[in-house]
């Protein structure tokens, strides 16, 4: 047995199974691109508030980051849901862990979406290197 999880026969589980594979392929491009740009070509030495402000002046990078955030977080939360399904069998603990996962996932998605969509450099702040 070398494949991934067996393909479910239908319903939400089948949808989730396909979502993991499709989002996975898109994330390979988005995440490896992000890592190459932000962790290899530029490094944390160069990245600061001004760097992000210049980057998010472009709608392209905001869109890129927003799509990556949604796909990565939903992919990760659904992956952790599968892990909880496999290891947490007591009913009470299942309800608690799945509820906490859903809540934390929702809060993180909301925080990330808010900052990507509404980010604005404060008025009067000079952004180094910005035309």
């Amino acid at each position, binding site marked *: *047995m*070398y494949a991934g999880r067996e393909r479910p026969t239908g319903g939400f589980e089948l949808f989730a199974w396909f979502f993991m594979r499709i989002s996975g392929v898109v994330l390979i491009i988005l995440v490896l691109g992000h890592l190459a740009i932000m962790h290899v070509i530029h*490094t*944390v*030495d160069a990245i600061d508030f001004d760097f992000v402000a210049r980057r998010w002046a472009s709608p392209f990078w905001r869109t890129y980051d927003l799509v990556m955030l949604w796909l990565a*977080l939903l992919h*990760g939360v659904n992956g952790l849901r599968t892990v909880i399904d496999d290891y947490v069998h007591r009913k009470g603990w299942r309800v608690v862990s799945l509820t906490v996962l859903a809540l934390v996932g929702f809060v*993180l998605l909301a925080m990330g979406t808010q900052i990507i969509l509404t980010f604005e450099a404060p008025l009067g702040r000079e952004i180094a290197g910005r035309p």
Partner: protein
Amino acid sequence: MYRGREGMWSWILHRVTGLGILLFLAIHIVDIYLLGWPDVFNKLLFFYRHPVFRVAEVFLVAAALYHALNGIRIILVDFWVEGTRFHRQIFWAQVVLFLLIWIPTSFVMLSPVVFGR
């Protein structure tokens, strides 16, 4: 089911790397949220610039790279009829590709830390 061979190890590593990446993603969303307070954001960057994190960052790249390559392998076995027949070759191709990409990348990422810039 997995008989303790390549299949079991690649499955365990897929889970461990996935959970590690998700943990970092959660921290990363919180740190990016702090952009709302520019000076706090800039002050806290010392954390990511610390040599310990620079080394951890190399392992983050390893986790993402492994999870990506193993994900491709899973998709090949799931959707490509010949995938099952060649699963062992695909596994070894994955190991070779991982090392070919990860070793030079780590060198580039760590040289500013090890040799100064």
